[in-house]
């Protein structure tokens, strides 16, 4: 039982890192970025190529996966996304889903459609017994990394100057601009960080979720569920939502395997019926 909760927690944490970038762009910048998973995929492939083909240590590839995805996000934001901010929701959806299809086909062409298999260093493999509970080392590593990230992000947004500028820019762009906040730069940096986090999530998740060119489509639903269940007004909402979904998924599959992955959709429906603004959203 404790092992299961532990697995669920790890899975949830992974979902959080993958989705929190989307919570930032969707919640703070009001931009519907369905192509979020493409950045996660870019990070995942960066790690796989660097470790498997170039022999770089896995841990070193994680910051690189972040950087690759962040740079890609920055460039695309400056060249493409920036033109879409003022457009309607439908335009944004069509535009970003188009990007997803391009990313899927492009990766297919570059790397082939087969499953990429990541080779982890041996110190992250296997499991240890702590107080009679079997704990997978890699999953413990995931929980640690993602937990730290969650705290840092929350502090960054609520306690730093950049965080308050970002929130100001989101609340009222014109006024923020008027008082001298470089709105464009703030948005570009935020978008890049969000993409970078997705890249990091893709890199961390390659081991557990698998990695194929279809990744952005396969996990799009999960990102959206996390964001809609968690609400988008802070980092804590998506964090709790991810953990809730991770636990529901793992426990559901264990105790009622015939339901398969149905459990998390049930959670989604219940949450949206009871609290359409998301579980943890502040009152509008």
């Amino acid at each position, binding site marked *: 039982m404790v092992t299961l909760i532990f697995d669920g927690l790890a899975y949830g944490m992974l979902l959080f890192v993958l989705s929190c970038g989307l919570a930032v762009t969707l919640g703070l910048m009001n931009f519907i970025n369905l192509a979020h998973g493409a950045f996660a995929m870019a990070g995942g492939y960066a790690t796989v190529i660097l470790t498997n083909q170039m022999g770089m240590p896995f841990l070193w590839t994680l910051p690189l996966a972040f950087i690759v995805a962040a740079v890609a996000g920055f460039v695309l934001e400056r060249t493409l996304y920036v033109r879409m901010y003022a457009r309607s929701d439908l335009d944004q959806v069509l535009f970003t889903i188009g990007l997803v299809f391009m990313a899927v086909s492009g990766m297919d062409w570059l790397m082939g459609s087969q*499953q990429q298999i990541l080779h982890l260093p041996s110190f992250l493999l296997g499991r240890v017994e702590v107080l009679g509970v079997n704990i997978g080392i890699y999953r413990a590593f995931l929980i640690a990394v993602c937990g730290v990230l969650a705290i840092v992000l929350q502090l960054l947004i609520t306690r730093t100057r950049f965080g308050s500028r970002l929130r100001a820019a989101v609340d009222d762009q014109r006024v923020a601009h008027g008082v001298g906040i470089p709105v464009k730069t703030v948005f570009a940096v935020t978008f890049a960080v969000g993409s970078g986090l997705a890249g990091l999530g893709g890199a961390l998740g390659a081991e557990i979720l698998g990695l194929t060119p279809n990744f952005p489509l396969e996990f799009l639903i999960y990102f959206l569920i996390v964001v809609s269940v968690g609400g988008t007004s802070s980092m804590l909402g998506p964090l709790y939502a991810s953990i809730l979904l991770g636990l529901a998924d793992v426990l559901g599959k264990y105790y009622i395997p015939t339901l398969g992955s149905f459990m998390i959709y049930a959670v989604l429906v219940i949450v949206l019926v009871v609290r359409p603004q998301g579980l943890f959203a502040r009152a509008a």
Partner: protein
Amino acid sequence: MKVTRRTVLGTLAATSLVPAAALAQDNVLKVGVVLPMTGGFQSNGRQMQAAINAFVATRGDTAAGRRIELIIKDDASVGDNALRISQELVTRDGAEILTGYGYTPAALAGAQISARGRIPQIVTVAATSSIIDASPYVLRTSQTTPQIATPIGEWAPANGARRFMSIVSDYGPGVDAETWFEKSLLEHGGEVLEKLRVPLANPDFAPFLQRAIDQSPDALFVFVPTGAGAAFMKQFVERGLDQSGIRVIAMSDMMDDDLLNSMGDPALGVITGGPYSAAHDSPENHAFVEAFKAANDGMRPNVVAVGVWDALQLIHDTLEKTGGDASGEAFVEAARGTEMMSARGPIRIDPETREIVQNIYMRRVERGEDGELYNVEFETFEAVADPTH
């Protein structure tokens, strides 16, 4: 019969097939090959294309005095496309034989054209039993899922694995494998404690494996698509199941030659049942592997490649028998009962069912002398027919 737009189109297609075939009475025989070169089944498409390259380089392109022209088209792993492409190949390009078909929906789509146009269709990869019933002109050189699952269910109880948990991906072939494995296992004195179906889209096996540990069976029966197999074995080892005495006995797809090497150590010792291993020890296979590698930059062939090679060989052999006649009835009649020495061992086209009859081998993953991982065969079930027909 209700006349819909579809039936009208179907009739048009069927009538227009006749002149196309009649026109092709010169000495070139066109064979339409439908492959998934892109999309989800791309890895099959790659092996199929590579097998074609190797075959043509080795055996040439002439049979019974007719030059065989292969027209290769990509269906992008979408069944709808396979239907359209098969129809175009027959009606516009004048193909007299259809082959390829890298997955079940494509094969079933092609069978519609085969049935209406009386075109011989040779399925080289798809493994669903019912394909053979979809058209009286279908032949198969791949394998069927029940054909593999049944011998595994027979082998296991005789070798110390009676109490099973079955873990399969929740889609057609997975359910087929689960059903036929259980049937065979029960007949041979084993039991399935629990049947778990894993969603295709979500490859985190953690909760399913945890459930398996808690039931402590003798072994797990596993059928998942090739890519997910790697994730499964990693998590199996991560959970320490390899030390727990619970064995993995799986369908060959999980330890496919195409991916086996990149799976690394977690794959070692896994037992699978299947029709072909690149390590099969026979002069035919050595020659095949060598020809295949020579034509494709050292790429290793898998079961898909053998299926394609044998399909092309079957076309050549059958044309020799019919004197170059590729019309549906004559071709299929001549192909019935054909026996061939394939790279996988002896195979036969069952004269009654048109289905392939072949050896199924039990294999264990071991590290070969060249440092690569191979499925090493250690027991043979000879001439296994598809149990559903």
